[in-house]
C-alpha cells in the first residue's frame, strides 16, 4: 500500500484524465462521455484523498506522504510534496467540491463543454498541488496556475459583465503575485533553500521579515480577501458560472488563509506579531462593514459573496490571535465556509438554472413549490449563521474564544458577527423562501431533481457532521498547529 505515491496520484490523476478528454472528439454523442470521464475521475480522486485521510497518522506533527525529487541539478529546487494536518483538509475540501461542481455543471453548461471539463480537471490538479507543495517554488507555480483556469472559467462561461469581472480579478491578484515572487527570490537568496518545512521557525532578521511579510500579505490578503482588497470578489462571483463560484468561495479563498498560516505565521513570526494589530483592525472592519453591505444587496450571489468576506474576516482574526483555539477555529471556519458557501452558491445555481435571474425581488414563496429545496437551504443558512450543531458554529466560537485571549476589542468585533450574519441571512431567506408565490413565473417551478439532491444532500450532511463531530477534523490538525504556535512563541519571546 505504502509504495503507491497516493499524493502524486491525487494531484496528477485529474490531469491525466484531462488528456484523455482532450483525445475525445467533441460532438453530440460524446458529450456525455466527456462529462462522465470528468465526473468519475474526480470521484476517484476524492476516494483516494479519503484513503489518505484514513492512513493519516494524527500523532505526527510534521509532513506525511512525502515525495521528493530533485528538479534542477544546480539549484535547490525540488518536486517535494507532502501533507500535514493543516493541508490535509484543504486537499480534501478540493477533492470533495470538484465532483459536486462537475455534477452541478451537467446541464447548465451548454457551450464548449469539453474545454470546460478540461479547465476544471486542470484546476483540481493545481489546487491539490498547491496545498500539497512543500517546496516554495512549486507552491508558487501551482498558486499562480490556479488563476489560469479560473480566469478562463469566468471569462468564457461567465455572465454579461464577465470581462470586467475577470479583469478586476486578474488585476488584484497580479499585484499580489508579483510581490510574492520577489519575496520568494529574496528567500532563496538568503537561505539557499526553498523548503517550507526547513524554513519554519525564525530564520530571518526582523527587518527582512517585515518586508517579506508585506510582500506575502499583498498576495494572501487579496486572495482571502481582506477589506479593502475585497471588491473583486463580488464581481467575480456574480459573473462566474455556479461551479466557478463554488470553487472560488470553497477553495480559492482558502489559499489566502492557508498562506497566512504557512508563510506569515510559520516563517515570519516576528513580523506577524508586529503586524497583527493591523490585521485585526482590517478583519473587524471586514466583519462589520461587509455584513452591512451584504444586507443591501439585491443579487443573491453578491450577498453570499459579501458574507464570504465577513466570514473570512473571522478566519484572519483567528489566525493572528495565534493560540490553539484561534488557529483551530480559523481552520474549522475555513473548512466550514468551504462547504457552506459552496453549498449556498449551488443553491443559487438551482434556482438560477430554472429562472435565469438572481434578483432577490424576483423570488418569494419558494417553499410552496420546493419544500426539499427550502429545507436544505435552511440547513446551509443556519450553517452560515453559525448555529450550534452546524459547522459554522465551531469555527466561529473557537475564534471568539481565541480572540478573547488576544484583546477585548477584537473579541467584540468578532462576536458582532453573531448578530450581523443572522440579519442578512434570515432576511434573504425570508425574501426568497417564505411568503406566498406572487410572481406568475414561479408558479410552475419544480423542486430539486435527483442530480441536485445528490449534490446538496452530501453537503448538508457535511455541515451537520462537522458541527456535531468536529473532533475528527480537529485531531489531525492539533499537533501541526501546536508546532506553529510554539515556534511563534519562542520567536517572540513569550
Amino acid at each position, binding site marked *: 500500500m505504502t509504495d503507491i505515491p497516493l499524493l502524486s496520484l491525487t494531484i496528477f490523476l485529474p490531469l491525466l484524465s484531462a488528456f484523455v478528454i482532450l483525445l475525445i472528439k467533441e460532438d453530440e454523442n460524446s458529450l456525455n462521455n466527456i462529462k462522465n470521464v470528468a465526473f468519475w475521475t474526480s470521484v476517484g480522486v476524492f476516494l483516494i484523498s479519503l484513503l489518505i485521510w484514513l492512513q493519516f497518522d494524527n500523532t505526527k506533527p510534521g509532513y506525511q506522504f512525502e515525495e521528493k525529487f530533485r528538479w534542477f541539478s544546480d539549484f535547490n529546487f525540488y518536486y517535494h510534496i507532502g501533507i500535514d494536518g493543516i493541508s490535509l483538509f484543504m486537499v480534501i475540501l478540493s477533492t470533495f467540491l470538484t465532483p459536486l461542481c462537475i455534477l452541478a455543471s451537467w446541464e447548465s453548461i451548454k457551450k464548449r463543454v469539453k474545454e470546460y471539463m478540461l479547465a476544471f480537471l486542470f484546476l483540481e490538479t493545481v489546487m491539490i498541488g498547491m496545498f500539497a507543495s512543500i517546496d516554495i517554488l512549486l507552491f508558487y507555480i501551482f498558486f499562480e496556475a490556479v488563476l489560469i483556469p479560473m480566469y478562463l472559467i469566468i471569462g468564457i462561461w461567465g455572465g454579461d459583465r464577465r470581462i470586467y469581472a475577470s*479583469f*478586476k480579478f486578474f*488585476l*488584484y491578484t497580479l499585484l499580489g503575485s508579483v510581490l510574492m515572487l520577489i519575496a520568494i527570490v529574496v528567500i532563496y537568496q538568503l537561505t539557499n533553500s526553498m523548503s517550507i518545512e526547513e524554513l519554519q521557525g525564525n530564520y530571518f532578521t526582523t527587518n527582512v521579515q517585515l518586508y517579506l511579510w508585506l510582500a506575502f500579505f499583498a498576495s494572501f490578503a487579496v486572495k482571502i480577501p481582506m477589506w*479593502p*482588497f475585497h*471588491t*473583486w470578489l463580488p464581481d467575480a462571483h456574480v459573473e462566474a458560472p455556479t461551479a466557478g463560484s463554488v470553487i472560488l468561495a470553497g477553495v480559492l479563498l482558502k489559499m489566502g488563509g492557508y498562506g497566512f498560516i504557512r508563510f506569515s505565521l510559520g516563517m515570519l513570526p516576528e513580523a506577524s506579531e508586529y503586524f497583527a494589530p493591523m490585521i485585526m483592525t482590517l478583519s473587524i472592519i471586514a466583519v462589520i*462593514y461587509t455584513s*452591512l*453591505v*451584504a*444586507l*443591501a*444587496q439585491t443579487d443573491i450571489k453578491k450577498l453570499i459573496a459579501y458574507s464570504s468576506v465577513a466570514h473570512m474576516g473571522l478566519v484572519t482574526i483567528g489566525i493572528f490571535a495565534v*493560540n*490553539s*483555539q484561534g488557529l*483551530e*477555529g480559523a481552520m474549522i471556519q475555513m473548512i466550514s465556509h468551504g462547504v457552506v458557501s459552496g453549498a449556498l452558491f449551488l443553491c443559487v445555481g438551482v434556482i438560477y438554472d430554472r429562472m435565469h435571474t438572481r434578483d432577490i425581488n424576483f423570488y418569494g*414563496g419558494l*417553499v*410552496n413549490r420546493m419544500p426539499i429545496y427550502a429545507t436544505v437551504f435552511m440547513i446551509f443558512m*443556519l450553517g452560515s449563521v453559525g*448555529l*450550534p*450543531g452546524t459547522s459554522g*458554529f*465551531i469555527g466561529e*466560537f*473557537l475564534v*471568539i*474564544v481565541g*480572540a*478573547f*485571549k488576544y484583546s*477585548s*476589542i477584537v*473579541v*467584540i468585533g468578532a*462576536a*458582532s458577527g*453573531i*448578530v450581523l450574519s*443572522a*440579519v442578512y441571512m*434570515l*432576511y434573504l431567506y*425570508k425574501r426568497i*423562501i*417564505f*411568503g*406566498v408565490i406572487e410572481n406568475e413565473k414561479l408558479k410552475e417551478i419544480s423542486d430539486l431533481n435527483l442530480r441536485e439532491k445528490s449534490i446538496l444532500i452530501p453537503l448538508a450532511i457535511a455541515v451537520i457532521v462537522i458541527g*456535531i463531530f*468536529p*473532533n475528527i477534523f*480537529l485531531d489531525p490538525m*492539533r499537533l501541526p498547529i501546536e508546532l506553529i504556535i510554539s515556534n511563534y512563541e519562542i520567536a517572540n519571546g513569550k
Partner: protein
Amino acid sequence: MAHLIIFLPLIGFLFSFFLGKKYNFKISQIITTSFLFISAFLSWILFFSYLGERDTEVIHIFNWFTSGNFIVDWSIRLDALTTTMFIVVCSVSACVHLYSVGYMNEDPSKIRFMGYLSLFTFFMLMLVSSNNLLQMFFGWEGVGLASYLLIGFWYHKPSANNAAIKAFLVNRVGDFGYALGIAGVFFIFGSIEFDVIFNNAENFKDHTIPFLGLSFSTIDLLCFLLFIGAMGKSAQLGLHTWLPDAMEGPTPVSALIHAATMVTAGVFLVARMSPLFEYAIITNLFITFIGAATAIFAATIALTQNDIKRVIAYSTCSQLGYMFFAAGLGAYNASIFHLMTHGFFKALLFLSAGSVIYAMHHEQDMRKMGGLFKKIPFTGTMMWIGSLAIIGFPYFSGYYSKESILENAYYSDSSMATFAYTIGILTALLTAFYSWRLLFMTFHGETRSDKKNFDHAHESPFVMTLPLALLAFGSIFMGMFFSDYYIGKMQYVFWGDSLVLHEGKHYYLPFIQTLIVKSSVAIGVMLAALIYFYKNNLPKNLAYNLDPLYSISLNKWYVDELYNSIFIKPYFLLANLFWKRGDEKIIDKYGPNGISKIVGLTSGYLSRFQSGYLYHYAFAMLGGLVIILTWFIYY
C-alpha cells in the same frame, strides 16, 4: 433513563421529519405525542427520586470537541434544578403535543408542526441538562431556532415571517453577550464545566479584569455578559420586543415556548450559575432593577391590549420580571419555584385562550367576544383557575411562589430590595386587574361578537380539554405539594448543592404587609369588575380622559417605533452607504478602476513618443547623446 427523557423527543422529530410524509399523519402525531408522555412520565419518576437526599449526577456522553485546553463534552447533569426543569418542560410539552392534535387538526402541515414541537423539546432538555456552558448554548440557540420555525410556521403570513426574524435577531443580540460571557469564563477559569467554575468562583471574588480599556470586577463583568443573554431569551426590558410579536405563531407554540419553557431559560441560566452570580454584587443590582422594571412595564401594557394572546404575552413578560428580581436578590429557590408554578398556570392560560380562539374561529380580538362562559363553560372554568393562580389566590400554586418572592424582597438587605418590593406589590395589583379584565371581556357580560360566530361557538374536543384539565391540576396543586421542598423546611435536602440558598429561616411577612399584598390584589380585581362589568361605557370614557397614558400603554410605550428609528432604519441606511459610497465610490474608484485609468492615461502619453517621424527620433537620440556626454565629463 435521562437519556430516554432527552432523546425520545429527538427521535420523534426525526421520525416525523424524514418518514412522516410516507405514512398517515396520525402515525406522526401518535409517535411524537406518546414519546413526550413517556418522557414526562420518566421525568416525574426522576424528579421524585431527587426529592430526597440525592447527589448531583453527571452522565458523560462523548467529547464534543477539544481545542487546546478548551474541552467541551456532551453530558447530562442531573440534580434538583435539572429535574425540576425536566418536569416542567416535559409535562407542559406533552400537554401541548396532545392539545395540538386537536388544535391543528385542519392545518395541512400538522406533521411538520408536531416535529418542530418535539425538536423544540429536545433542545430545551439539552439546555437544562447541560453540564457546561457550551452545551447549554447549543440548547439555547436550538430553542431559538425552534421558536423561529414555529413563530413563522404559517409562512404565508408576512407578519409571522417578520415576527420570526425579529425573535431570532433580538435573541441573537442577547446571544452575543452570552457567547462573550462563555469566552470570558473560559479565559478566567480555564474551563467551562460548571463544577470547575463553581469551585473556583470564590477565588475570583476581588479579581479585576481589563475590558475595553477599563477595569471591571471579573465576576460582575462575566455575569453581566451572561445576563445579557438571559435578557434576550427571557424578553426583559430592552430586549422584550420580540415576545409579543411572537404571538403570531400558533397558540400551542405560545403556550409551550413563549410562556412555560423557553422564555424561562434566562431565569434558569441565572439560577444554574448562582454560585457565580452570588459574587456579582453590581450585576445583581442590575438584574433586580431590570426584573422589577420589566414586571411593571409589561403589566402596564397588558392593561390595555385587546388581543387576548397579547395580554397573556405581556403578562408572561411581567412574571419573568418577578423571577429575575427574585434571582437578583439572591432568592434563587423562590425564583425557580415561581418558574415552575408559572409554567403550569401560564400554559393553562394560553391553551385556554387557544380554546377560546378555536371556539371563535380564529378571532383573537377581545372586543369581539364577551359572554362566552355560557357557550364554553369548561374553557371558562380553566381560564378562571389559571387567573386565580396567576394573581396568587390563596392555596393556588401562584400564591406560594409569588408570596415567597415578595417575602424575600421584603427581608432582603440589597439596596434594590425596597424598590423591588414596592414594584412587586404594584405589579400584583395590575396583574389582578388585567387578568380579570380578560376574564370579563371574554367570558362575561353581553356578547359583542356577531351572532353567527357566537352561535357557532363550541367547546373544544376531548384531546384539547384533557391537557387543560391536567394543567389545571398542576396550577392548583403544584404549590401545595412542593412548597416545602422548594422554599420550605425541606429546601436544604431538596436543593442540595444545585443552587445557592440564603439564610436558614423561612420568614413570613408581618401582618400589615400581608394585608397590603392581599388587598392590592383584591383592589385590582374589583377595579376590573367595576370598569368592565358594572358599566359598559366606562372603559371608553376612561381611555378618553386619560388619553396620553392610555395611548402609551396601548402602543407599548412606543418602543418598537423607537427601535425602528434608532436601529433599523439607520442600519439599512448605513448598509447602502457602505455599499454605494464605500465599495463603489471609494475602493473601486481609487483601487482597480483608478489604477487602470492611470495606466491608460500614462500609456496614452507615452505612446505619443512613438510618433513615427524621423526627426522626432533623431532629436531624442541627440538629447540622449548630450546627457551621456555630460555624465562622462562630470564624473
